[in-house]
């Protein structure tokens, strides 16, 4: 048997035509910390995928720095297997990831390799290659944001509305509920009817594996994973993969956008992404700038976030909404990376640890949060109901400062303060319990119309949930269904809701 195999091998070798031409190669002259210095290979292109011929396998690397005599490259595999003197060849390709419907519900690394143990994702011919680095859609290919993306968080959907194709930053200190908001938005996509269901992409950058596992388990448990893709580059991944993760997520998102679908992508978080890029840049000996970040850190995030867009009808009308997350230190939003990303995005949701510890959760600081384009996408119903809420809360904040100095207030001021306290209470929401927009509309109407003015603050939440139960049981189609279907709050529905609230008040008293 072994003789036969040897014979076959001999035959194969004798018939083997050798390529006699020279090939262009580079030689690894330095290796360490996931970085290669390669001599030769003078024709390599920036961001070109290289192949390092290590002892037992070929390891991919990415050309990063093209210098006079050297190429600085980042290893995209096991760097320990690469030795000095190893040959490096060009592939003529740039990094890409396979995307398609099959990737839904899967957990992948930034190179598209499955991490969930569920086997291969694509068949041999399945999936479409999408470049990790790709030009953002041009002005002509875009359309204004017009369709809302409901997060299920009352405070956000009412006062800081997000539109499909928008880039809305979630910013705040550690442990203020940034990820919780993003996860609520993912969960809410399942129950948001009346619009196309948006596919969710969650990009975990530099997080603990245990936290990522917990997030995936929660999404599985609530049935949201079938509509979600997780791109994971945990804290134990090399900096090169952490750097690539958001670009891989954006490439997957672009597949859905180009297919005429809607997608929402969460970059959790870009502070750690900036840190990974700083690490790579310093190891590649690029000159450090402010806070030791390289000079192109703004461009890095700008080109990433610019890829989120609402495409024109000619281009299929798909959209990619970005919810980048930034972690601040001690509430300092004026440091380098936060100010960069604030200026790139179309608004920010600012979470404050002070509010969080006061029990205001989600701890959204409405005064510092803004959505620059989302109001155009807000549903008519929400606009009608919550239009003046921002102003009322702003007045409340202003007056609340005076309360500390004087107890003798005029009735009008007292009323405004009571209304502010009621609204603050109503906007509180438990973690992972997104509220469908029609229910948010109804509750906010009840609070703003004065129907809840006589309800003591501690009882406001139970009154609201009781009212929702009442409406669900007795007026499901005529009120909640009507708002959901038309996304409008007509006079007819308003009259019916007024009557229903009145009836509920009478029944609650009895």
């Amino acid at each position, binding site marked *: 048997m072994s003789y036969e195999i040897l014979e076959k091998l001999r035959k194969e070798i004798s018939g*083997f035509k050798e390529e006699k031409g*020279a090939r262009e*190669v*580079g030689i690894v002259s330095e290796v360490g910390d996931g970085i290669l210095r390669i001599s030769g290979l*003078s024709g390599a292109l920036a961001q070109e995928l290289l192949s390092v011929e290590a002892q037992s396998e070929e390891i991919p690397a990415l050309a990063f720095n093209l210098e006079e*005599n050297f190429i600085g490259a980042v290893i995209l595999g096991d760097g320990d297997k690469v030795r000095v003197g190893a040959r490096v060849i060009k592939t003529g390709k740039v990094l890409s990831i396979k995307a398609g419907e099959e990737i839904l519900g899967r957990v992948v690394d930034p190179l598209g390799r499955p991490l969930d143990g569920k086997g291969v994702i694509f068949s041999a011919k399945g999936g479409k290659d999408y470049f990790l680095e790709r030009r953002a859609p041009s002005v002509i290919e875009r359309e204004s944001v017009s369709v809302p993306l409901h997060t299920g968080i009352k405070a956000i959907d009412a006062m800081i509305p997000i539109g499909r194709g928008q880039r809305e930053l979630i910013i705040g200190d550690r442990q203020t509920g940034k990820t919780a908001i993003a996860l609520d938005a993912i969960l809410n996509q399942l129950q948001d009817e009346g619009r196309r269901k948006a596919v969710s992409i969650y990009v975990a950058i530099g997080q603990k594996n245990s936290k990522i596992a917990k997030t995936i388990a929660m999404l599985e448990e609530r049935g949201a994973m079938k509509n979600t893709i997780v791109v994971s580059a945990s804290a134990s991944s090399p900096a090169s993969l952490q750097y690539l993760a958001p670009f891989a997520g954006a490439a997957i998102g672009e597949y859905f956008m180009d297919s005429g679908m809607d997608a929402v992508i969460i970059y959790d978080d870009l502070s750690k992404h900036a840190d990974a890029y700083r690490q790579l840049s310093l190891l590649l000996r690029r000159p450090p700038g402010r806070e030791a970040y390289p000079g192109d850190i703004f461009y890095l995030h700008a080109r990433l976030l610019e890829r989120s867009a609402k495409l024109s009808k000619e281009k299929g009308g798909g959209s990619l909404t970005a919810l980048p997350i930034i972690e601040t230190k001690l509430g300092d939003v004026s440091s380098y990376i936060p100010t960069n990303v604030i200026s790139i995005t179309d608004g920010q949701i600012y979470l404050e640890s002070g509010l969080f510890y006061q029990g205001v959760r989600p701890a959204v600081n409405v005064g510092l949060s803004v959505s620059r384009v989302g109001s155009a996408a807000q549903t008519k119903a929400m606009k009608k109901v919550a239009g003046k809420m921002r102003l009322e809360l702003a007045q409340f904040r202003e007056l609340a400062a005076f309360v500390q100095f004087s107890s003798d207030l005029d009735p009008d001021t007292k009323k405004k303060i009571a209304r502010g306290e009621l609204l603050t209470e109503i906007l509180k929401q438990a973690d992972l319990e997104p509220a469908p927009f029609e229910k948010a509309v109804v509750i906010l109407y009840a609070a703003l119309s004065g129907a809840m003015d006589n309800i003591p603050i501690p009882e406001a939440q139970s009154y609201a949930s009781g009212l929702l139960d009442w409406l669900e049981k007795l007026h499901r189609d005529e009120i909640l269904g009507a708002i959901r279907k038309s996304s409008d709050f007509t006079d007819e529905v308003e009259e019916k809701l007024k009557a229903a609230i009145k009836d509920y008040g009478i029944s609650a008293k009895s």
Partner: protein
Amino acid sequence: MKYPAEIYAKAFLGALQSSGREEERSVIKNFSSLLKKNGDLQNHEKISLEIEKLMSKKDGGIFVSIEVAKKAGAAVKKLAGLFSEKDVVKINILPELLAGARILINGEREFDFSFKRRLKDLFAK
């Protein structure tokens, strides 16, 4: 290494060029003390190789690295003899090639006639 070998080589040749023949000794002495000061004395072979490369390039020659699996025999010597006197030819023994030879010209064009490559291409088919 404080500076890459090529930088040292360029600096050394630059200094030699700008100085006269009588200063040659002092340039060599200063260069050696610079290597000692920078803690790069142990890399002198790398630096010498780079100097050699640059000198042959300047004279219109090429730098050739021939890698063979076994101790250089008559065939390898014949192969090395194909190159001109201006060229720098280095022969290294690399048992992992199994048989045959690999020729690298100027550090970036390679002719690979090794058995290792043949096997690799065969199994990659």
